[in-house]
Every structure is written in structure tokens, then in C-alpha cells.
């Protein structure tokens, strides 16, 4: 850890880990399945994004860096679509969000 990119990379990795922790906390603390989806789709994906960026800075060549970066959009697309699928199904099954009993729009 001597050069500037190394410091930036370390900072990004630590920040990423922080968002992962936030995602886990959200999953454990948020009141219902919809709110937990927020934790999963936003905090965890940002955590992975920062992690990927931090690791790409350490890559040996451009192609290797791009390969690591490629992971992020794939996970983003997957988790956005899966989150919608689960939220839609929960809504179909009549699961009410917390704090919203009986007042569906």
C-alpha cells in the first residue's frame, strides 16, 4: 500500500464492505419483504459496485480490469429483475406492506 491507486482501491473496498453490512442489517431489521428488497437491491449492489471498482484498480491489464467490472452490470440486471418478480408475486399473494394495512391504492 504505497501508491495513490492502492489507497483509493483500499478505500473503495472498505466502503463496499460497509454497504454490504448495511444490506445485511437491512435484511435483518426492515419490517417486511418489500422493505427488505430495498436493502438487498440497493445497499448490496452498491457494495458490490464499490468492491468491483476497487479490485479493478489492482488489475494487471485493461482486459482483466474490464472483466472484473463486467460482473457488476450482470448482477445489477439480475437483482433488479428478480426483485420485481418477487415484489410482484408478494403483491399477487396479497401480502400487505407494514404500516399500510387495509389501505391499498
Amino acid at each position, binding site marked *: 500500500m504505497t501508491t495513490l491507486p492502492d489507497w483509493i482501491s483500499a478505500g473503495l473496498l472498505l466502503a463496499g464492505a*460497509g*454497504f454490504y453490512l*448495511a*444490506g445485511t*442489517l*437491512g435484511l435483518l*431489521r*426492515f*419490517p*417486511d419483504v*418489500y*422493505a427488505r*428488497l*430495498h*436493502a438487498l*437491491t*440497493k*445497499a448490496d*449492489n*452498491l*457494495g458490490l*459496485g464499490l468492491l468491483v471498482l476497487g479490485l479493478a484498480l489492482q488489475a494487471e*491489464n*485493461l*482486459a*482483466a480490469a*474490464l*472483466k472484473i467490472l*463486467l460482473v457488476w452490470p450482470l448482477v*445489477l*440486471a439480475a*437483482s*433488479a*429483475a428478480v*426483485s*420485481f418478480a418477487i*415484489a*410482484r408475486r*408478494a*403483491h399477487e399473494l396479497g401480502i400487505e*406492506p*407494514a*404500516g*399500510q394495512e387495509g389501505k*391499498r*391504492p
Partner: protein
Amino acid sequence: MGAVLLRGTAFALVWWVLAEGRADSWGVGVVSVAAALAASLYLAPPGAGRLSPTGLLGFAGFFLAQSFKGGVQVAVRAFRPAMDLAPALVDVPVALPDGLPRVLLVNTLNLLPGTVSVRLAGDRLRLHVLDARLPIAEEVRQAEARIACLWRTGP
């Protein structure tokens, strides 16, 4: 024709990244890219709309900034000892044309601050919001405007 060239180039670029630029990979690479291109053309026939490069850049910038904001917002709420949530279901009207733009909106809103899409029916999108006190409608309009700029002519 343009779509074939564009997608072919994109897949070739992905192959180059996967194979880490090794030149001896192109024997298998050409076949794989051709197969991926064929599958892509079969599954998603090219439409009339053309992507606009400036719109793409604008959307990417907007998306990165907003998804950072979204992550921070969820993280702040998850870390705070007394979680300050006001969850609610909200219906918003959708002005974007049917098809890809709407799908993109649904997916984008899933990753943006405070919203998870729950149902898309007709011209109305039902969202679950973490905090109903935030200006949700305004954010949805912003995302819609960015997505509308992606195509030169509506697909």
C-alpha cells in the same frame, strides 16, 4: 443491418474481455460470437429505434449518481438505531411507450433511491416506497425523462 453490426461488435468486445485479449481465442470466439448474435437477433429482433450516444451517457451518469444515493439512503436507515421508515404503496402514471422503455423504467426504479416496483398494469406503475415523505413522483419523472432521451426515435 446497423443493429447486427452494433450487437456483433458488442459481443466481440465482451469476448475480448472474457478471453483477456488472447489472440488465439478467436477460433472458438468467432463461433461463440456468431451463436450469441443469432440468439440475440432471434430473441430480440431489432426495432425501429436507434440508441443515442449522448442519451446513453446522460443515463449512465444519472444512474450511477442515483444508485449511489439509493445505497446511502438505505444504509443510513439500516444503521440508525430507530429506523425512520414510512413505507407505503404508491401509484404513479407512466408516460413512456410500452416495451423496452417501460421495462427499463421498472428495473431502474428498483435500483434508485427509495422505490421498488411492485406491479406494472396499463399506464400505471405501483411502487413500494421506503419513505412516503420523499418526493417520489418527482424522481420517477426524472428517471422517465432520462430513459426517453435514450432513443433517437421512439421504438
